[in-house]
């Protein structure tokens, strides 16, 4: 049943309003924690704090607590024997997932990202995963790519579309 268990773990991870980058990070965190647990006699090494933010650390603490306290939880069902297979399936799932790619010109704070994910999921009516990428060339607005089709709703595109009008209006100020 490692496949079913992996499905459940995957759903529990993507349930939260996080982008695909965070999903990958959380799977990696969980894998590191469980590897230490099973193969380093519980003496887990300190995680590198550089790339683990507070939200992810809290999430990790949460699942560690769940494993301890709720014996029927999915995290408690992971054992030394099924661990490797479960994470293989999980990593494959992440590789194969088809995210909605959102290009934005600036880095957004975590709560804004969460709001964005919630909004997209509500609009699309399904737990779609968001791949948020930074593209400063957009200037403003955003561009979306889904199934290989890229739609540009950015300020850059607006300027391109209206460049003649914009240039004409600038001409008025040239003496």
């Amino acid at each position: 049943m490692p496949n079913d268990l992996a499905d459940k773990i995957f759903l529990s991870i993507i349930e939260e309003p996080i982008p695909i980058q965070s999903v990958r990070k959380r799977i990696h965190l969980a894998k590191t924690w469980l590897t230490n647990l099973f193969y380093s006699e519980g003496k887990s090494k300190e995680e590198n704090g550089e790339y683990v933010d507070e939200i992810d650390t809290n999430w990790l603490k949460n699942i560690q607590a769940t494993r301890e306290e709720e014996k029927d939880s999915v995290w408690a069902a992971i054992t030394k024997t099924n661990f490797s297979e479960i994470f293989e399936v999980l990593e494959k799932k992440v590789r194969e997932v088809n995210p909605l790619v959102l290009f934005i010109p600036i880095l957004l704070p975590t709560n804004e990202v969460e709001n964005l994910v919630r909004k997209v999921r509500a609009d699309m009516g399904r737990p779609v995963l968001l791949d948020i990428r930074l593209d400063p060339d957009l200037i403003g607005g955003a561009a979306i790519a889904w199934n290989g089709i890229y739609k540009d709703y950015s300020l850059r595109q607006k300027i391109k579309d209206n460049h003649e009008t914009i240039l004409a209006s600038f001409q008025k100020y040239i003496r």
Partner: protein
Amino acid sequence: MPIQQPNQTIQEIGIVKSVRGFLVFIEGLPTIKVNDLVESNGAFGVVTALLDNLVSVFMLQEISVKPGQVFKRANQTLTIQVGDFLLGRTIDPLGASIDGKKILTQKGTASTLEKPAPPISSRQFIKDQFITGISLIDMLVPIGKGQRELVMGDARSGKTSFLTDLIINQKDTGIICIYASIGKAITDVRKLIDILDANKAFTHTIVVAAASSDPPPLIFLAPKTAFAIAQHFQKLGRDVLVILDDIGNHAKIYREISLLQERAPGRESYPGDIFYQHAHLLEIAGNFNETEGGGSITALPVIEFNMTDFTSFIPTNLMSMTDGHLLFTSTLHNQGMRPAIDISLSVTRVGLQTQYRIQNAIAGKIKSTLIRAAQLESISRFSTELPQETQLLLHEKELIEELIVQEAFMFYTPEAQVMAFALIFTSFLKDKDKYFVRLYKNQLLTAFMKDPRFKDFPELIHTGKNEQELIDKLEGLSHVLTEICTPGAKQG
């Protein structure tokens, strides 16, 4: 390569899933086709295969591609701009100038690199000789316009100098020469360009160069680009010569690409379709009728190999898909033979039909003399007194061998060549030795081309039925020949 990015809000993109050297696997690009171009950060790749959920792309530039990188569809297939502006230029397989001269911005005709060869209905019989100006080739192993002749041999056998001469000799014939340098050192290409330039032969030549340091997919495209350019000129009714130097490198590059794609290796680790790749290229050559624009494409693929490994996979493949081959050997080259072609092992399958009747007959006599003399030569080593007939035959062989040696940058018209070879069978050279021929052959050949006393000969060679007519006519001009071969004699 200038790419016009569409000014639209919707376009196709793909995201890199994995990278293996210059091979990139991309997810997305829903309506992309094979040979379409994709672009990321100014670097281009060409789509080579459509897999289940992925698109396989070969990068045409040396850039580092990482998983997650976004590629855009360039809305263009693999094409280059072709036109007269390419003459005298050196370009890479994507059509960008690499000769340090002005950047090529001219808009010519867009020509796709991958298109099917013209059908049989648009081809015609090869009837015109491709004049190389080199006696040995034009007389004994003639090439027709539209023929595919493999140039093969071992290292340092004079292949490149022969090819250079060939291009230089086309400067007054109106033939356009396209030299595709496939995976060679860029210094070799530079040397070739300098020689062509010094001999004023670069104005009718286009060099397509992909150096050994270029990405393998780019090297792989070099012969395709050469043929795309050749097809453009051929459709305008021009005769084109395409030299692929060397096709063995092309095979090795294709093997590298295929192994990287995890395609099953076959004989000598080459992929199963290596024969198709080369045949597909070479079948573009030919002589075309008016429906296809007239003109012809003569192809000379070159392959270098070790003479001990004569029957290896790629050379035998190429031998089977060409209309003959010229075999160069370093042994002959070291003996002073120029060009160092082994006549007995060289073949031409369509060239003979392009020769004039008398030219063909004289060539037949020469070959027959060489074969008979070769048989008697070994016997003659054991005997001091030989019959007069045998002595004459061996003497003729000696003179022929001297006559076919041609120094670099020399051009002789086919008529002059025929007259020179016919001279072997006249009484004029009966009592002359090879040193006499060595000393006066250039004077004789120049006189045959320019001296008004020989002005009737070309007509006789073109229309004559019997070689004896020519030999007899030359006999009648013995006094003129003697005059030409006098030290310090003035010509014409």
